């Protein structure tokens, strides 16, 4: 017998319904590719997956940018100030042949994920807590099944809300 709560839950929007299939990168991909994926697909962030398609990291756009900042500058604002203007414009070229794995922070923060049946409120709280405009949707085995962007979530919230 189906309870009232189950009926309500089935009618409410869930993560898998609003998820998109974003392109992902692996740790051995070059940083340049990661930046390119974000730019070309106009993504708010990027999901780094392992060989079994399990998310290793969910990076907001600002943290994708961090991948391209040479490690020497990341935690040393005084050193950043010493760099002349000409070189400062070209900092991202210094990433060279570095891979995503080389540039991920250590330790990597636990990826922001939700299960496919997560409600809009669950997604919103994870997004807010993790300061991430992108959340990975994973199945019970931890494999990536999709992703929810901030834009999709806000649109869904607007649609789900009472009409004017």
């Amino acid at each position, binding site marked *: 017998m189906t309870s009232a709560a189950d009926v309500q839950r089935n009618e409410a929007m869930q993560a898998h319904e609003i998820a998109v299939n974003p392109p992902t990168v692996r740790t051995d991909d070059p940083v340049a590719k990661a930046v390119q994926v974000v730019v070309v697909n106009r993504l708010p962030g990027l999901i780094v997956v392992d060989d079994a398609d399990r998310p290793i990291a969910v990076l907001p756009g600002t943290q994708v940018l961090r991948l391209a900042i*040479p*490690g*020497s*500058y990341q*935690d*040393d*604002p*005084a*050193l950043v*100030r*010493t*760099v*002349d203007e*000409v*070189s400062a414009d070209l900092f991202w070229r*210094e990433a*060279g*042949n*570095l891979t995503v794995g*080389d*540039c991920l922070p*250590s330790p990597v923060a636990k990826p922001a994920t939700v299960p496919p049946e997560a409600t809009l409120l669950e997604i919103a709280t994870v997004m807010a807590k993790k300061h991430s405009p992108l959340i990975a949707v994973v199945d019970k085995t931890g494999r990536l099944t999709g992703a929810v962007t901030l834009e999709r979530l806000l649109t869904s919230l607007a649609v789900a809300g009472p009409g004017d």
Partner: protein
Amino acid sequence: MAPVLALAIFVAAFWFIATERADKVKTVLIAAALMAVLGLIPGERVFYSEHEGIDWNVIFLLLGMMVIVGVIKQPGVFDYLAIWAAKRSRGKPFRLMVMLMLITAIASPALDNVTIIMLVAPVTLVVCERLRIAPQPYLIAEVLASNIGGAATLIGDPPNIIIGSRAGLTFNDFLVHMAPAVVVIFALFVVLTRVLFRADLRAHDVNLQQVMALQERRAITDTRLLIRALAVLALVIVGFGLHSVLHVAPSIVALVGAGTMLLVTNIDVTDVLPEVEWPTLVFFMGLFVMVAGLVHTGVIGTLGAAAASAFGENWFLAATALIFGSAILGAFIDNIPYTATMTPVVEEMAAQTPDAETGRALWWAFALGACFGGNGTAIAASANVVAIGIAKRAGHPITFWKFTKYGIVVTLLSATLAWAYVWMRYF
């Protein structure tokens, strides 16, 4: 039964720490909890016994110094110094290496090694990349120099902090007994680097223009903050020098210094507290409880007595064993847990000596061996691990053996010189 149980818990935990199979903070907390729950160390001793519990003097000395360092690093003085040194070296590799080693070795006795490396390594990478020379030899030389320099004072290296607190040795004791040895060993180490790194120090076609374009003056934006922070640091060092006269524990000097630093620099506390390495402090607490289990169950007493009887009345042989044994063991396992474990053993040995002077000679032998052992391998000291991590993230990896092949030579040289120093001065 209790000693066997305590030893089994300790050995298992130490294995996990040494092999890095598990997080070291988790490991010591579990081992400490087991010691307490199984009654191998009574609860009240954990908190209230200096010799069979957490050494709060060490914990608060570390905390105070971490806060002081958290403020000192803000004005960018190390970036300024390293870029200035690079420009003054005119791109000559050996001159650059010596200047960078001097910066780290002079700063290490006053601030901790890990922070010095965290401050100097990034600017070293930038300078070397701009000169188009491999940064690895310079980073390795800086780490070796910081581990040697840190041995000079009570606050320069964590093993010294533990030894000083347990043996009741003052800041001035370290200055008088350790600093002379460190100065001589550092001078010879600088000469040795000319040979050790000769292949990397050949004149290259360097790109000096790129380094000259760096604007080191921009690193320091708040001169007032810098002057105030350096003035407080100078006062803290004077305070350490007077702590035995004023009958104030070094930890109190560090805490008062930390408070004064925050007060006069008007820096936001929330900017400084994240600079405190909380996991390190928790690691130390767990480690002390682990070792306390061994002390309380009599394992350490038995070990110390056995060590003392093994050397008979030959205390020079005991000092020799402490220097070389500590240098070798400290090289293969992190020298902090090694020192924390061995300190009560050395205390037992020192108690058996015929006079206090001989007992102190054993402490100095132990301190020199434990500090210089930190150079032995890539994992022997926290500064080594931090430098290797920074190099890897910048795309200039330093393999375990690349570091160790230099580290072993420097450890052998410094331990042998330390042994000659102990022999000539104390026996």
